[in-house]
């Protein structure tokens, strides 16, 4: 995958993580049984930030 395509993917992932895991309607406890896997979320964010760093340095 080219750097540009990877960056686009990273940006998409960052935008999705930012909303789908951190915002939106969440009902803890009695009715819903699942909140997404926390360890994986952090791993994802670190990967994304690496991409962002190279993206800003390019300028």
């Amino acid at each position, binding site marked *: 995958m080219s750097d540009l395509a990877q960056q686009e993917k990273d*940006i998409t992932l960052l935008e999705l993580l930012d909303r*789908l895991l951190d*915002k939106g309607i969440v009902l803890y406890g009695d009715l*819903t*049984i699942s909140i997404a896997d926390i360890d994986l979320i952090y791993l994802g964010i670190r990967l994304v930030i690496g991409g962002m760093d190279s993206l*800003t340095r390019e300028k």
Partner: protein
Amino acid sequence: MESNYYLYCVTPKNNRNNELKLIGHDGKEVFIISYRYLSAFVSKTNKSSYETNLDNLQLHEKVIEQIMNNNSVLPMRFSSICKTRDDVKLMLRKYYSQFRENIKKVDNKVEMGIKIFYKIENEDYEKISNISSGKDYMMKRFYMFEDWKNKIQPVLDKTRNIHNRLSTKSCDSRFTNPLKNNLIFNGAYLVSKDEVDKFSEIVSEIKNQYTEFKIIFSGPWSPYNFVFIKQAGDGDE
């Protein structure tokens, strides 16, 4: 056997939605469970959680985007799962008035996102790096902090100007200045559907004006940043 229900979003009940043919997680059909004037969009699953990866996140978002075309949508957080059909109904009942209030607020509106990246170069205080005492070390930390503070303030002022301009074309807004990993501003704007073009024009102007920033513009999203449910929903019943 699939006995659990994966939740995508809540919308006002609309009979035309029965014609939507949507595919959710694991290729399962998305269908509607309604209570009074509200509908929850769900698909059956045998899982109790979903792995956080790009494909799964995109699928959740894609389903919501398709529903959003014809409905006011309250998006659920990723990997929200109910055990039974009755639990889905109970959720709609328990939070009924809160859902209705939220729908009123976001009706005919979408969320637009702005992220601003900027790298702040820190002076290297090598001249006092020859640390021989705790005091030298503290002085070095102090100078580095002062330097960073002096550089960051004008940058934050600029992001505040940008935010103010964007706020004039939005019904509601949220922002933070994370100041981490070069992300200096993270903003979300609730924009009327018929104002999206104007809002985008302002973003283009801002991009041309602030070429020192890397500005990521995204949307239209369902209003993730503008839906709020108080957990003590018992009073709704």
